[in-house]
């Protein structure tokens, strides 16, 4: 299910959600993506916006276009690992800063996690 919130640009949210689907395997590596129009209809968004998101993904190397055939997810597993790693880094950084806000530093946090 696509969830679009009101206060952030639509295309960034689409970008994130497609990325997540690729990472989670919902869109398997090397598989063909539905057409822009189909995706837009599914997400109930403007096709131009969906197109913008997909082009950004192409720029990031997650998606490529085969002319006259359509868009495909990259087959490059390394690329995927890279994106996963980057996303993970961001999440961890966010998490650690939140922990810091409640007074726990990195070592305390790791200890808590190990005993989780």
């Amino acid at each position, binding site marked *: 299910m696509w969830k679009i919130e009101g*206060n952030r640009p639509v295309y960034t949210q689409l970008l994130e959600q497609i990325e997540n689907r690729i990472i989670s395997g919902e869109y398997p590596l090397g598989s063909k993506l539905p057409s822009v*129009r189909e995706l837009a209809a599914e997400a*109930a*968004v403007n096709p131009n916006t969906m197109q913008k998101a997909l082009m950004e993904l192409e720029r990031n190397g997650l998606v490529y276009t085969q002319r006259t055939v359509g868009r495909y997810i990259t087959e490059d597993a390394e690329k995927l690992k890279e994106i996963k790693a980057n996303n993970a880094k961001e999440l961890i950084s966010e998490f650690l800063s939140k922990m810091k806000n409640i007074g726990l530093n990195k070592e305390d946090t790791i200890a808590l996690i190990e005993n989780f």
Partner: protein
Amino acid sequence: MNTILECKGLRKNYGPFEALSGVELNLDRGKIIGLLGPNGSGKTTLIKLANGLLAKTDGELKIAGMEVGIETKKIVSYLPERTYLNNWMKVSQIIAYFKDFYDNFSEAKAYDMLKRLDIDPSAKLSTLSKGTKEKVQLILVMSRDADLYFLDEPIAGVDPAARDYILNTIITNYNPQATIVISTHLISDIEQILDEVVFIQKGKIVLHKTVDEIRSIEGKSVDALFREVFKC
């Protein structure tokens, strides 16, 4: 040419009352645009002018580079807020009527949509509920392969399932050569399908931006911005 609608210094007076006081507006092809403003802001006047239902007082209004007339009516498809179909006809008859007068009307598309919405083509329009009549009107408008669509409150007074179907129809009918202008009060329901929004107030355009611009620069939804700009 990429500009589908062009207004320069457009004015419309009803006697002493200035409904439009110098509208400047350029709309490109291939966009879904929200025309938003409070009641009495001039939205309906602008739409009526573009459809040749009113004559302008001053200024310029061109559609695909042409003055409003028979040629522009061929490429403009209008869904008014009211039910405007002749009640004595059957659904199949009004479809035949549209086919007769509009070269770019697709009978097949219309019947397909009727089937999906479970509407009986042999039913008399007068026997249909208000909501169903509105759906029929929308089907007729969207079955035309026009260059400019004006939808005036297409989802008001329609149940949520039908609303989804209508938005879905608008998205899947998307044509990079055509522009859809949606005038509505239900901004939060449609803002994610809009490319751009135009705010109109007291007969003048006060804002014309893309939805994403507004969200990234203002950090709020179009709906929230609207409430701010048009606070009573």
